């Protein structure tokens, strides 16, 4: 999967919108950005959200991959 094909660079610096960029002390999610190059470097070898979620311990990334599935941008 090449994330450049499914994500939009919204900052001009190779970053896409990320609804789960951080979590505050009370557990609330804060939106921000995610590096498209980072996604390609670490998850580019996978094709499905399930494979990507299995390859990370990050709670925010797992939610992000699910969100991409809901958006119809990534196979489950």
């Amino acid at each position, binding site marked *: 999967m090449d994330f450049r094909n499914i994500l939009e660079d919204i*900052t001009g610096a190779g970053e896409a919108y990320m609804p789960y*960029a951080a*979590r505050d002390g009370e557990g609330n999610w804060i939106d921000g950005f*995610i*590096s498209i190059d980072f996604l390609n470097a670490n998850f580019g070898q996978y094709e499905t959200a399930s494979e990507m979620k299995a390859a990370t311990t990050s709670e*925010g990334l797992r939610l992000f991959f699910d969100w991409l599935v809901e958006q119809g941008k990534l196979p489950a």
Partner: protein
Amino acid sequence: MSIVTIGDFKNYLQTVANAVSSGKMNVNDAEVKSVLQTIAAAVGEVSATPTANTLADRLKAIADRLGEASANPTANTALARLKALEGYLDGVEAALGTQSDAEATGNGSIIAILKRLRAILSDVWNDTANALNVQLTGSNLEPAANFALSQDVVVTSGSSVVVYSNVDLSKYTHISGVFFMKNNLWPHKITVGWKNSRDSIVVQQEVVETGDAHKIFGPIPIITKNANIRVVNQDTVDRTIFTLDIYGHIRG
């Protein structure tokens, strides 16, 4: 000779008194003389070297240790030690000075110098207002944004988040920062997004290089009046920000 105690004296005298009071008069001159000689031997003689262990000997020993009340008591006597202490106390008293001593700008008594210190501190610190009267040279920094410890933020792997949004930096010439990660160092970037009057980011400036081990940065010249401060987690796991404090360098 054997040591004669006060109790012995008392017994000797009681013996004489009993003899007289009973009317027996069975004490002859030799016996009285013997008792008196015993007493005399116990008292000792008035001399530079009284017989050892007599009362005179013990009194002389005490007198020798006390020393004489004079301008120069014999060394190592109690009076000589007291005189030395008196000298020290006189010195301390002189160094302390008195409450009426005037404030000293140069050398002076401790009270005079303390008065000067109090005056200087009063110039610097307004006790009533609980605030400094003047800005100290070099202390041109003040917190521009603080990240409270209770607000630890966990940044998702590969993501970036604006920690401080629209910070007003208009009164500063530069900003510096202190950044602490929780537990250990992780790959990160800190960026300042300089905003124009229409609230758009015009410059995204990295203030900490990728993978930089330093946890302080700056001073960075102010480009616009408002900025967003961002933290980028470049690690493959989620990471917690512990502290990110931004300090502004005050103009002038």
